[in-house]
């Protein structure tokens, strides 16, 4: 835990409020980057929410990460429209470009993490990827290099 003070503040904001576990975890993750075991244990001690419940929620939702993430998040859409527009070759191009081998999702320099997501809501521009909050559409595998370069 790098930001104990900030975490305490977030806990203070949510403690005792019903239904606040998800936003609590979301905010903690925003400042910590991910939810480490120690962080979850600490949250449990401070809030009296059972650690099993915290872990259960953190593993249920794809938004929560139990491992450190890259600085930039690349979401490759694998929704229906993108799938039929050959999203697989886009994913391959992204992985090749970042030199990720099978099973890895984060580059060794921790600059990029690649995720597969189901639909970014821009299906008419399929295939689509999103880097942080920016969406790129009508992609070809060749276009990936230029786009990723902007974030290097």
């Amino acid at each position, binding site marked *: 835990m790098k930001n104990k003070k900030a975490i305490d503040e977030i806990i203070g904001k949510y403690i005792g409020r019903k239904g606040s576990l998800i936003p609590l975890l979301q905010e903690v993750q925003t400042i910590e980057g991910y939810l480490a075991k120690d962080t979850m244990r600490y949250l449990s001690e401070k809030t009296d929410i059972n650690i099993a419940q915290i872990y259960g929620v953190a593993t249920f939702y*794809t938004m929560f990460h139990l491992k450190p993430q890259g600085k930039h998040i690349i979401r490759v859409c*694998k929704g*229906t429209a993108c799938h*039929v527009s050959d999203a697989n070759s886009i994913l391959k191009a992204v992985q090749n470009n970042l030199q990720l081998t099978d099973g890895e999702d984060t580059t060794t320099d921790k600059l990029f993490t690649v995720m597969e997501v189901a639909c970014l809501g*821009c299906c*008419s521009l399929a295939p689509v990827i*999103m880097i942080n909050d920016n969406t790129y559409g009508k992609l070809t595998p060749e276009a990936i290099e230029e786009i990723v370069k902007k974030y290097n």
Partner: protein
Amino acid sequence: MELTIKVGLASCGLAAGAGEVYSTIEKYLKKSKIKAELKKTACIGMCFVEPLVEISSENGNTVTYGDVSPENIIELIEAYAKGKPINKNVILSNILEGSENEKLNNQTRIVLRNCGIIDAESIEDYLEKDGYKALEKVVSSMSKKDIIEEIKRSGLRGRGGAGFPTGLKWEFAYRSKSDKKYIICNADEGDPGAFMDRSILEGDPHSILEGMAICAFAIGADEGYIYCRAEYPLALKRLNIAIAQAEEKGFLGKNIFNSDFDLNLHIKEGAGAFVCGEETALMGSIEGERGMPRIRPPFPAQSGLWGKPTNINNVETYANIAWIIMNGADEFTKYGTEKSPGTKVFALAGKIKNSGLIEVPMGIPLKDVIYDVGGGMKTEKPFKGVQLGGPSGGCIPAELLDTIVDYDSINKTGAIMGSGGMVVMDQSTCMVDIAKFFLNFTQNESCGKCTFCRVGTKRMLEILTRITEGNGKIEDLEKLEKLASNIIKGSLCGLGQTAPNPVLTTLRYFKDEYIAHIKDKRCPAGVCTSLLRYEVIENKCIGCTLCARKCPVNCISGEPKKVHYIDQDACIKCGACYDVCKFDAINKS
């Protein structure tokens, strides 16, 4: 003469480069003599020609251009200002002939009435379009019973997928006695291939807030949530702005329109789980738990969020409400069919020419949606099927394109209306692969509560994978059907109950493709990589050695300037040789 220039800045526009177009215009107007007001709007639905810019003048003349770029926009503005608008890439206009005019004219815009027309971040724009007049009308002059009666008479059915009558749902929540009631807007839009809710959220957020407020007033709720998926950052931002503006103007908060009606709305960001679109799972998620569906009954109208009576509707459902109140149920039922009145917004995507959002009256044939409004196929390749209803739906083949779009007719085909995502497929799509794709999706998204949904979908996926890899047996098809029927019977929520639909419909309409995979070890669409074969076409190969150098597993041999050869046993079917060959000398079959 002062001009108004509007740029479409929804997610689709931004992804196509509308942000740069906007800033180019902004910079230009600072220096130019041309007087123009630069405005932002959202998505008009013509996503295939984004970025879109509308130029209009005080006398009402309007031209909307598509495919605009930072390079050509200045020329378009200058020509317009000189009174000689350029007649190229015109999408809509009342002074020039636009190629797409007709396509918009085939539509009926109730839900999308303001999308792409007003600035979504300006409540003044919404008010100018009679915004919040419906809320004022119900609060000051209608009884709760009258409102519910009006919605019931309109026949509006929930647009979130199941098509349950909205008025009836409101009546149940109204009748439940409790000191506290909630309303929820389901903006989780999980169907991969559907984006109409996003467009409404980004393009006309106040219409949703107004619909929710009318519902809250009618059922007696004073607090509500909008559950919006986190993948829609722009929608979340605009919702936040809209709520703050509505609170400031007194349309939300305490004593709305000087009555004793109070309403507080909150936004809940989804955390990435498809099953949370299911209403009871969604409530679990708002309560801060794992989003697992609960047994119904009790239904949300009796015991919903934190055990209190709750009404939940979809984004598009709420967006209809203010229009119905203002124009009356009779006007609404003029559109659509007897059992499915009104309009439906569809998100057209895939291999269709005019991909984007359209709103058409219920009851028009699928054929017209695809060929008239949607402009037909994108390429020369013929139509094969259209997928409706996402992971819960099915693929409808060409023979059934005369089916009309309403809840009951679509159900008869084995697909479902769902939220309105339509993904059009051509001959390059493999139907077995599509079935596998959806099953992979539902299998990943199953919350794990019901054994049949958790394990059964996994077994089905294994069988489908086996078939796409050329290891299927003909008995597998029967096994798939049996598993499917057990999963439907043995699952608690809609996710499991409908998960087999994509498999069942493709089995029903495209069985020959399954058989080709199993018997001939062949993928007719050339999609399933394991069944592909790459071969050198001898009379085309000049022996340039490029393919041999690019092959990642070194399975291509041959001397320079001589015909090369691919070792089929070592080939991993990556397609690298096919992609790099400059002489089209590799045959993929």
